[in-house]
């Protein structure tokens, strides 16, 4: 069940919110837990047992760890918990990839028979919740926060439905206290602001990302050998906007839903396409993943405090290779991670200084082009095909040709995508955004936002029910 589906918007959500509003304070967590288990089971009925089982194991490992002062046992529990969680992630996510590559070597080099293997299905949201389980054990190990006393509270932290499937990845210590008490934030003001945020996210996903996605699918579905320069760029840009509005829209919906329940989820996006460098881009794109990688991988590797620069560059690159691989088990994702890692390294070496000198506009434009080019690796399944596609973007055989599938609706929404992607490039835009998202509301502002939300929900449900095209990119991660 995706947030942008009729069954969620008009059935699950209103029934849940009504019950949540009416139920007593002591039962609210129980209600969220039941709703979350139902929500997850709906999409992955078999894997609910995997998630319930691993959380049970984690909970007790962490409890044992916190009950002992002996370093050896603490480390043992930490290693066990991380190994189990990462092991499951590796098993479900990377086994197919590993076997495929082994088979490739076996058949091409040794001319032997392939290993027979039943392909595994990826449990929904495993990449997200595995990272959260790791933060639980690591945060407790590091003494950042005490463990939860009640198993069901821990279960709630992991399975909380707004962020379960596609984040934001919330570190344990960021949410721990809110699980036990968030009554201060359960106000009508927050409920309304959460609902507005949900509607805005829904609009970003359905009204913009889906239209961009249709165009991207049309172009990326063509034979790459036959596309012109314009078409290749249009496809890359359409996908660039699709993935941003798709994922940031989903994050908005998650943050909004959390807010309705009184949770304060961390922001996941901050206008990434206005970044002046790849380093800045990663502070603005999928912020919670970036923070996780920084705190649970980069810093343990030594972070910035390493003895020599090459080690620093290696660490940076390694983190981005891991980030690429986290997104998906294919060489395209690995390359995409390496591509970003490469730019981060050369930015540290000299490029950041160049970006500073050439000014805001030019550096933003160059960064945007680097990012958009990178999305081609993300979008095209086979690495070799991605390079063919890039040849048409940068070494075109034909410049002209028809721009396939482009109609007035596409161009209008393409312009809207550009507008909202670069909205905060100017200070005024940033101010407007802050006002909408974070400032407290007056009565008239509530009326305006409530009206906009009603219109957005109506338009989105109208669009959803009229088309079969409603994918969500980050679902498969």
């Amino acid at each position, binding site marked *: *069940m995706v947030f942008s*589906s*009729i*069954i969620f*918007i*008009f*059935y699950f*959500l*209103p*029934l849940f*919110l*009504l019950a949540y*509003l009416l139920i007593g304070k002591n039962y609210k967590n129980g209600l969220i837990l039941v709703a979350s288990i139902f929500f997850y089971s*709906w*999409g992955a*009925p*078999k894997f609910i047992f995997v998630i319930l089982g691993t959380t049970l194991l984690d909970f007790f490992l962490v409890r044992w760890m916190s009950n002992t002062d002996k370093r050896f046992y603490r480390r043992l529990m930490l290693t066990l918990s991380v190994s189990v969680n990462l092991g499951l992630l590796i098993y479900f996510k990377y086994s197919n990839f590993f076997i495929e590559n082994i088979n490739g070597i076996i058949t091409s080099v040794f001319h032997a028979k392939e290993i027979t293997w039943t392909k595994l299905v990826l449990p929904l949201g495993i990449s997200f919740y595995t990272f959260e389980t790791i933060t639980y054990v690591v945060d407790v190990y590091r003494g950042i926060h005490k463990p939860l006393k009640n198993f069901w509270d821990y279960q709630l932290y992991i399975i909380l439905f707004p962020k379960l499937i596609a984040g934001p990845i919330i570190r344990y210590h960021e949410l721990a206290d809110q699980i036990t008490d968030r009554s201060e934030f359960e*106000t*009508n*003001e927050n*409920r*309304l602001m959460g*609902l507005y945020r949900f509607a805005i996210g829904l609009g970003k996903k359905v009204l913009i990302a889906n239209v961009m996605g249709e165009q991207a699918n049309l172009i990326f579905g063509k034979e790459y*050998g*036959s596309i*012109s320069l314009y078409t290749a760029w249009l496809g890359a840009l359409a996908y660039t906007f699709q993935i941003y509005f798709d994922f940031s829209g989903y994050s908005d919906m998650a943050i909004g839903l959390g807010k309705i329940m009184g949770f304060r989820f961390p922001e996941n996006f901050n206008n990434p396409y206005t970044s002046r460098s790849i380093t800045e881009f990663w502070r603005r794109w999928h912020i919670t993943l970036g923070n996780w990688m920084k705190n649970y991988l980069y810093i343990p590797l030594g972070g910035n405090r390493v003895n020599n620069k090459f080690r620093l560059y290696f660490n940076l690159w390694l983190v981005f290779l891991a980030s690429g691989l986290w997104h998906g088990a294919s060489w395209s994702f690995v390359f995409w991670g390496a591509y970003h890692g490469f730019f981060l390294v050369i930015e540290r070496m000299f490029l950041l200084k160049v970006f500073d000198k050439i000014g805001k506009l030019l550096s933003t434009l160059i960064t945007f082009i680097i990012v958009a080019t990178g999305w081609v690796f993300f979008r095209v399944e086979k690495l070799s095909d991605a390079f063919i596609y890039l040849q048409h973007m940068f070494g075109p*055989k*034909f410049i*002209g*040709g*028809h721009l396939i599938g482009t*109609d*007035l*609706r596409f161009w*209008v929404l393409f312009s809207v995508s550009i507008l909202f992607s670069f909205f905060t490039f100017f200070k005024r835009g940033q101010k407007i955004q802050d006002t909408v998202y974070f400032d407290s*509301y*007056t*009565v008239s502002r*509530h*009326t305006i936002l*409530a009206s906009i*939300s*009603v219109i957005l*929900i*109506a*338009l989105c*449900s*109208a*669009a*959803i*029910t*009229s088309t079969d095209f409603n994918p969500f990119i980050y679902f498969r991660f």
Partner: protein
Amino acid sequence: MQVIQAKYTKFLYPVLLCFILLPLLESNLNFVDVKRLNGAVVGKDTIPVFSFKKWFSGSFQSQEEKFVNDSFGFRNICVRINNQVDYSLFNRSHSSDIEIGKNGYLYGTLSMDCIYGNDFLGTASISRSVSKLKFINDTLAKLGKIFVLIIAPHKGLVCPEELAEYPYPFRDTTNYEVYLKLLKQAQIHVVDFNNYFKTRINKTKYPIECKTGVHWSSYGGALAGDSIIRYLESVLHIKMPKPVWGDMNLSKAKMHDIDAEQTLNLLFDIPSPLMAYPTIKYENGPDAIKPRAMIVGDSFYDELAENGIGNVFDKSSNYWYYFTNYGMKLSRNQVKDEIGQSNVVILLTAQYNLARIGWGFVDTTYCMFKNINSVHSQEESRAEKLEDVKEDIKLNVNWLRQIEAGAYEKGVSLDSAIKGNASWIINNQAKN
């Protein structure tokens, strides 16, 4: 102020909650009579049945999601909202049959292809078809019967200034042009309403085309009916019952005049000028004769029928919609019986239906008269057709140039591009 705000938010949140609850309530209580969608399959989908096996396989969930998506409360309004937004803001149609032109003018999708020649059959193919028509015409003449081919007007030709920009390459000739030329050479009785309508489009008292309909307007159809009767009188050398025009009802567009608009399933009506709906009676004079007719036609005949044209024909006359009888194509024996009883055989076709002229009538009748078994499509092999279309492409400079540009873009040879285009046309003809 803070008190007011607190009261307001306390009130506003439940209101918004009620808003998202409404579809669920409506789907269970049906408290609002929601206008149904035209062209939608009527009848509730089956409610998915729960079982643990289906739950764990995920099939129940996907069935339930589909069921809810297709049947939730106010869905029809949602569909209309989506259609209206796309129509009003982006000139976009959600009906595969309807193209949106300028100023609210609607056109049939098929008719767009026909006007730009993208359904062009090829000169050789049309020539063969006309030869068959000529044979039918001459055989009927020997039997003392008259064959008349009526070509209904094409809205795109009558009101070309309102056509939308055609996104595909187009050709410099069309089925209509080639058919008309060859039919004239073959001396077949043809009533072509295109020129008639084009010269009268802004001169008649009431609109003869409606911007929201695919066909001629009710008034336009009445004028056409009048002309058809006069033409039949001249070729049959008889006097037929005379149409007498009574009251003219003026109203906003309705019935066939909004058939294209209805297909769009919009929230609001498209504004159109007042349309005229004539009342016509038929006077049987002392010397009036009602010929027995066999009529094969498409939906353009519907307006003629509604205006009562059937009154000028013998009661036993028959109209075969798309050459079918209860959905089945007429058999050779049925055609034989029909023709045997008739004084006049009328084939009425929209211009866009010239690509499939007669819908089987031509081949069946031709084979029946020739006393052969094989029909056109078997007789003419795909290879022959392909060569015909390839030849046409090569002879058409504009068309050839467009294919050349496409070949360059795709990096394929010109010959292969010509073959590809010809194959596409033939496949499309087969589909239609």
